[in-house]
């Protein structure tokens, strides 16, 4: 009986902790969220010997743990599909989100594994507390002479705090860029054709991420 009581109090305590962590995340401003994730990811990537020696599967794990919770893949897929989204069945929609999510994770992990001695700088940011959709602007300074990579994020505030739903690299928004690819595939072979292309692409990319033994 005593043991049971201890257990319940432990669980209650854990839940309280989680709740607090959750509340803190919801209060976090979008720019500090971006700064925190970027810093965590970059520091872990630089400190991890396996990642530095080219272990892609470790990069994937890092991204899944640190970045995934803050990205709204559902919304990204909806936006990239544009008007075609409503023409898809719920099953197709679900599959589309799943495959697009994988592709984005692979691409992001690929970008991350190229990070060596880059430095991040943030543009001044200040949002009204009432804002629910903001843009956080930053730039990556590379050691190569004069090479600066713009890196901006669009975030929306939902029930679970801020989430990223679009990224701008070198002046091009990811979703806008995928729109053309999506509509080209759909006009060629329909939603199922797009899903098929995405699945094939992911299968190819996943080969890079299976651990080499």
């Amino acid at each position, binding site marked *: 009986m005593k043991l049971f009581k201890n257990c319940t109090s432990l669980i209650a305590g854990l839940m309280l902790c989680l709740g607090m962590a959750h509340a803190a995340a919801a209060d976090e401003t979008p720019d500090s969220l971006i700064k925190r994730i970027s810093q965590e990811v970059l520091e872990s990537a630089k400190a991890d010997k396996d990642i530095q020696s080219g272990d892609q599967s470790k990069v994937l794990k890092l991204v899944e743990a640190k970045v995934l919770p803050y990205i709204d893949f559902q919304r990204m897929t909806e936006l990239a599909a544009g*008007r*075609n989204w409503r023409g898809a069945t719920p099953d197709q929609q679900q599959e589309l989100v799943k495959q697009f999510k994988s*592709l984005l994770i*692979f*691409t992001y992990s*690929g*970008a991350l594994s*190229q990070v060596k001695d880059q430095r991040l700088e943030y*543009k*001044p*940011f*200040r949002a009204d507390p009432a804002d629910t959709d903001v843009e956080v602007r930053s730039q990556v300074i*590379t*050691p*190569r*002479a*004069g*090479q*600066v990579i713009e890196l901006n994020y669009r975030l929306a505030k939902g029930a679970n705090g801020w989430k990223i739903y679009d990224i701008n690299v*070198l*002046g*091009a*928004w990811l979703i*806008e*860029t*995928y*729109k*053309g*690819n*999506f*509509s*080209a*595939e*759909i*006009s060629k072979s329909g939603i199922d054709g*797009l899903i098929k*292309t*995405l699945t094939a*692409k992911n299968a190819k*990319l996943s080969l890079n991420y299976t651990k080499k033994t």
Partner: protein
Amino acid sequence: MKLSRLTGRATMLQLVLWLGLISGCSTVSTTVSTTVDTVKDRANRFAEQVDPFEKVNRKTFEFNDRADKAVFKPVAQVYADTVPGFMQTGIGNFFGNLNDVWTGVNSFLQGNFQDGFTDIMRVSVNSTFGFLGLLDIASEANMPKHKNDLGQTLGVWGVPNGPYVVIPFLGPSVTRDAIATYFDYYGDPWAYMRPVSVRNTGTFVRLVDKRAGYLGSFSLMQDAALDEYIFVRDAYLQRIAGQIETRKNYKQLREEDEETQRQIDEDEAAAKAKVDAATPKP
């Protein structure tokens, strides 16, 4: 792969550019169909408007890709792997300094005098204290580098993009910028370097150095794209549209950033005052 400098002789390029211009003029009046708005129609219409030469462009794109895989990429890889880092930085800085001259001219042409004067200062400081531009001490002295070319200037002045074109060896461009690239070449001091052999060698090294800077991003793009041609085109068009928009509104954007920074400082000062007031004085 927008490489803004050219290795080849101008005559060949002129021909390509004028061909682009002429065919560009002949397709300005694209009819917009008002029939049933199917997905196919929309995708095709977009392509017709911005990319009427898709067929030729795709061929050139594939050609560039093959040339890159066979020659430029391997050479750039060897350069990146074998030439010591400080030398690569020096090479990048040296040509970057020459480039600042034309960037400065274009800053003034765009009416952005503040950037223009910074560009002049950058060239002066880097050419003297920076040992002919090998060191970029201006950047460290808080004179940020800009990048402006004639294509952007024309865009700021309101000249439309024109059709999307892929230039052999140079990559994505639009008709306006492709023509401007010709003048960009002669706006760069290196074009007047003599003997010609030194100029050509230098230009080659410059291109290799530039390509070496994009070794990673190219493979990323290939991973991310479903149809690489469309992906690169759509990203490129967004990029240049954004660049021109930023340059058109530079004054407003700069003021907004300054205002935001001022407010952030104010917020911080207020927060600090609050803490100070709350802590009891000893």
